[in-house]
């Protein structure tokens, strides 16, 4: 006779509510870790998928994600001439607010160096990739734009020709892809008064030396980086040395970009979420332990009776462990169910990795075992005659 299952069936509502409570607690902890994973995944989306081996950015800077970067709009031609480089693309990304259907929307405009890059490196949920160098856009569905919609950015109208899903930046804003020239135009938009003031300043400026700009980077350049694809067998060190020798550029590998993003720009946020997740996990552990311990304490009279009837300790231990295990198992199952039902509706991506879930399950097993151990220690101390009390 399985006493644990008999008891659960008898107190089914209490068991269900207990498992549900544990499920919600676990869901919170899974969500916190998932949010952390989601932020990291979102932040690395572009770096991991854009297919660049090297990022050529402004000299003495580590842009474009960890800090600002602005390079000449023709830098790609210079980079393309270096031996061992198979492909180059210009890259720009910036946040933009605009109105659509009477509401303010946010998006991160990302320039695609069309026709070299039509966006084939990301998957579409609907529509198509870019087929024209102007006035076409591909939006992530989180921006809230329907396929075929027309939006006004700067002074031009753009038609949404494609939709993606889950392509966001590290802040969670959906990406809006346009051609690099359109992106530059959108980023360069200035009010008329500002243009006039700039002309005035430029007209009054003293000529510098031979009249050339002191920097190869035009002050109005909006290009942040050049993405480099290496030819098979290319000597990376030699290519990097060649580009660094120019003096006005810096070269970073994709691995360095990942490191900068995660360990420089996002480290405080990551630490904060991890700390929060740890606190949540600790609270979960304490509450689950208390629930299991209390459930065992409530059974001390029955345990005394079982001892009076001559039950072996192993039978009593098995009953406590089975009940704790079943509560943990059902709680975990409910946490999984609730997480899968609710997290997709959250505004930020929650990533539940199998290894994280495995670790959560292992932690839950340990919690159940430790809590049971306390309960078992009490149960084994109970004397048979306590059934009379």
């Amino acid at each position, binding site marked *: *006779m399985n*006493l644990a299952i*008999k*008891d659960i*069936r*008898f*107190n089914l509502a209490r068991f269900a509510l207990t498992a549900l409570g544990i499920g919600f607690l676990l869901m919170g902890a899974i969500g916190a870790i998932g949010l952390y994973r989601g932020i990291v995944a979102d932040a690395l989306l572009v770096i991991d998928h854009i297919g660049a081996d090297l990022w050529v950015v402004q000299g003495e800077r580590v842009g474009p994600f960890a800090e600002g970067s602005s390079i000449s709009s023709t830098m790609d031609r210079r980079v393309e001439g270096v031996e061992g480089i198979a492909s180059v693309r210009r890259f720009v990304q910036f946040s933009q607010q605009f109105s659509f259907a009477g509401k303010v929307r946010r998006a991160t405009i990302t320039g695609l160096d069309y026709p070299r890059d039509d966006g084939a490196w990301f998957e579409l949920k609907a529509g198509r990739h870019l087929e024209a160098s102007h006035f076409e856009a591909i939006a992530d569905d989180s921006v809230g734009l329907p396929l075929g919609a027309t939006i006004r950015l700067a002074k031009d109208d753009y038609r949404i020709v494609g939709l993606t899903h889950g392509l966001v930046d590290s802040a969670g804003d959906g990406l809006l892809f346009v051609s690099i020239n359109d992106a530059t135009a959108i980023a360069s938009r200035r009010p008329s008064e500002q243009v006039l003031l700039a002309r005035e300043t430029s007209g009054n400026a003293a000529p510098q030396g031979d009249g050339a700009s002191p920097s190869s980077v035009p002050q109005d350049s909006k290009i942040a980086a050049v993405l480099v694809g290496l030819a098979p067998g290319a000597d990376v060190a030699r290519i990097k040395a060649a580009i660094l020798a120019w003096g006005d550029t810096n070269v970073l590998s994709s691995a360095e970009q990942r490191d900068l993003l995660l360990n420089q720009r996002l480290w405080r946020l990551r630490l904060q979420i991890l700390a929060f997740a740890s606190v949540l996990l600790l609270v979960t552990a304490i509450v689950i332990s208390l629930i299991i311990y209390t459930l065992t304490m409530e059974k001390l*009279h*029955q345990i005394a*009776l*079982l*001892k*009076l*009837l*001559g*039950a*072996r300790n192993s*039978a009593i231990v098995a009953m406590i462990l089975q009940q704790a295990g079943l509560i943990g198992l059902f709680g975990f199952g409910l946490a999984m169910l609730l997480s899968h039902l609710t997290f997709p509706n959250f505004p930020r991506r929650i990533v539940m990795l199998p290894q994280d879930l495995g670790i959560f399950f292992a932690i839950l097993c340990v919690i159940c075992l430790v809590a049971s151990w306390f309960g078992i220690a009490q149960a084994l101390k109970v*004397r*048979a*005659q306590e*059934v*009379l009390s």
Partner: protein
Amino acid sequence: MTGAPLLSVRNAARHYQSGETVVRALDGASLEAHAGELIGIMGPSGSGKSTLLLICGLLEPPSAGEIYIRDRLVSYPGADLDKLRGFRRDHIGFVFQKANLIPFLTATENVSIALEIADVEARAARGYATQLLGALDLGHRIDNRPSRLSGGEQQRVAVARALANDPPLILADEPTAALDSVRGRQVMELFRRIAVERSACVMVVTHDPRSLDLFDRVIELSDGRILSEPSQPVQAHP
């Protein structure tokens, strides 16, 4: 009664330290009980009845003295009674004032659990439990949980559970205290039947003088000592 006693209590004492005072719950009690006997243990509150039962039931060791069951020394001062759990299961059945049934088990399961603990196969245990309950006129209640049973029915299930392993010694501590006089009498008559039909020794702690006629003899306790000499039966029973 003739033959070797089933239970032999020899000069058993149980003393508790309460602050600087020593409480003599049982103070040098000796008795012998034989198979087929129904023995009443009576006395005022605090006279040591329940302590005697706990010591006889191997639930408390005596502070002094010895307990023999079937000529085997089983309990003595400092005895590790937890090691006697198996022996207790096979030799002693308990019935208390409260039925102490497990609330999430049916009547049959409450009885068969005692058998399953003794490694009886589950189906056989349920079969025998059903048979026992039928014999105690509870055949119609086998699938009911304790909350659906009356006090008398619960107590009869507790009796069935005590009988499940066919123990030679049954100890009952005020089993009728929570029952009305009719139900109380029925339970006492049940013990009478068990003593006769199963040749079990049944010792019942009771305050109820209305059942005196059913006992083979009555042991009277006062201040931890046995007052009456338990050698002569109160009334002879076949």
